[in-house]
């Protein structure tokens, strides 16, 4: 309190340094958390990925998966699945979010937000089971459609495939998109539109020159969040496919707790590969975020 008062009066370099010291003290719990649960594990992953699990000696062998096409299949599957569920979740989620904002009824907005928060977090084994009961070979929807003459499984659809998993992932990707896109959509000021109309802009021109440029950055950064979210998901995929659709997170789990393929060093190397992809996604999001922030701050 004292330093704040002094600072507001003087603002000399010494006082500023003292304020900086106080600020870093406040950051201490967060810094500890980040160090213990993010930095240290990352360092340990990195170290482990270059050491042999059994002998402990330095090796590049853990990264040999990069040269084996069959070991890259999980990466291909994970990339495809994440991309497909991001596009599906992103587009549908955006439309729903816009519809909610356009409704201009607080009650609808509140219900939708609450529902989205719940649905976005409904994952894992219960979700897998719900989908088996709905879209499995004997699922309710599958059988109903079969009765109506549409044979999903005969047509090549399988719940236990990249396509099936895309549908399942969309279940939480759509509400997540709604949640992250509602704030920027709500922040679009009606006065911007009115101003454009007064100046004679058509609906399309308003979208093209005002709305889309402002919303493009939050939209793209939301997509990146969805993408990273899908890439790291584990429990739902395992509950549904028991490893028959190889994905990177499942592969890592096999290496660290499988009875057969126990090799934590190789798991570390896969995790570094996963982390590299995640870092690109999250870093990209941060860059885009900073670009749009100045427009959306009220």
């Amino acid at each position, binding site marked *: 309190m004292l330093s704040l008062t002094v600072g507001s009066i003087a603002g000399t370099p010494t006082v500023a340094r003292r304020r900086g010291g106080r600020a870093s003290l406040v950051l201490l719990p967060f810094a500890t958390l980040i160090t213990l649960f993010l930095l240290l594990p990352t360092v340990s992953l990195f170290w482990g990925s270059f050491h042999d699990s059994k002998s402990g000696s330095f090796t590049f062998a853990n990264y040999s998966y990069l040269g084996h096409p069959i070991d890259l*299949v999980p990466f291909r599957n994970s990339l495809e699945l994440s991309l497909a569920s991001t596009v599906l979740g992103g587009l549908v989620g955006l439309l729903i979010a816009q519809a909610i904002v356009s409704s201009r009824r607080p009650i609808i907005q509140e219900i939708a937000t609450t529902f989205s928060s719940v649905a976005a977090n409904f994952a894992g084994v219960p979700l897998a089971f719900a989908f088996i009961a709905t879209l*499995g*070979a004997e699922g309710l929807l599958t059988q109903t459609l079969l009765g109506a003459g549409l044979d999903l499984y005969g047509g090549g659809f399988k719940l*236990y495939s990249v396509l099936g998993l895309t549908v399942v992932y969309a279940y939480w990707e759509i509400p997540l998109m709604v949640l992250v896109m509602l704030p920027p959509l709500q922040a679009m000021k009606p006065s911007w539109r009115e101003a454009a109309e007064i100046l004679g802009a058509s609906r399309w021109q308003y979208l093209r020159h005002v709305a889309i440029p402002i919303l493009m950055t939050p939209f793209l950064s939301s997509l990146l969040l969805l993408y990273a979210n899908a890439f790291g998901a584990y429990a739902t995929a395992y509950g549904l496919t028991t*490893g028959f659709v190889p994905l990177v997170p499942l592969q890592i789990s096999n290496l660290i707790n499988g009875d*057969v*393929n126990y090799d934590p060093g190789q798991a570390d190397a896969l995790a570094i590969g996963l982390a590299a992809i995640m870092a690109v996604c999250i870093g990209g999001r941060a860059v885009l975020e900073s670009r749009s922030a100045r427009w959306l701050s009220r």
Partner: protein
Amino acid sequence: MAYDPLLARIDQLSDSYTTRQIDRRQFLKGLAFLGLSLPAINLIVAACSTASSTPSAAAVPSGMPGTADLIAAAKGEGSIYQTGIPPEWVNYQAIFDLWKADYGITINGTSTEGEYSSGQELDSIKNTGKPDVGDVGIAFAVQAKTQGLSAPYKNSHWSDIPDTAKDADGYWCCNYWGAQSFVVNTDAVKIPIKDWKDLLDPSLKNAVGIDGDPTKANDSFFAVWSAAVGNGGGVDNIQPGIDFMNQLQTSGNLTAARASDTNILSGEVKVAIKWDYLGLAVRDKAAGAPNISVTIPSSGSLASPYADIIAAKAPHPNAAKLWQELIYSDDAQLLFLKGYAHPIRYDALNTAGKIPADLAAKLPAADLYKKVTLVTNIDKITAAQKTLGTGWKIVINS
């Protein structure tokens, strides 16, 4: 005093028992049939045992496992401490009841300890020194011997037990096993499923499932390995099993849905390859909705046993030995079978005609079990796991 038919019947049974017209088991059954509670039965049996004891004191009521000396020594120790022997598993509760009725010796050990995994059991033996006996997976029984955690003892039915299922020095002995079987939803599957090749039938699209990822779960690992038995491989060669699974996968018959109880009951998995005891239990649970039949592949499959060990530093060594005598006795072995685990003396009991017809009717035919191979060689298990590690990638990525 008014004539009481119940008392008269108890008198009559007790007479038959003390004069050895009926054996102990028949006596217990008779008393239980009269609707008496367990404490009441114990009282009556105790009274009769005193009455029937002869001056030699060496006689053990017929049907009760163990020698008089061992029983006396175990009773002197007063209790037994168990780990990894949970009451709901393979009918152990009934075996506990039998133990209490026969010897009246207290069984100790918390329910958490009862649920211990094999690895935890060995840790508990090593670290607490409390347990007398444990029930562990075969690999852990071998490990217990090498780590000096188990003590040798050969029960009186030792010669009935196949050589592969016991340690030559008596440090462990298999007590029961499960075999890989076909668990078939007969409402959905209209063709007979008798052998591995039947699983390739085009009508079985997305129908055949295994119980988890074979590189992780023992059940599905043995499913793949058993497929080798029916396709030119065997205990020494798992590769034909991997190839067969690959064939199932490319034909579209293998589903990624796990052969769990839920997925079997809902019909999501129509033919499950999994342990027979799990399949028989889910069949009973389904009770006709859907109709499920459990069979052993006619060209054979593999079985994985559990083994008994006595802790090297057992605080109650005689009670531990008596426990071995009990669980390898006819009565307890039949109780395992009633819990759908195949007792290790199954062949001996079957040959002697000791398996009740009503129990046999609930199980896959005894003949089919003749083609089942018991896997107890740890080196072969390790080798098969290694081959699977690389081979399975090809199956799931094809």
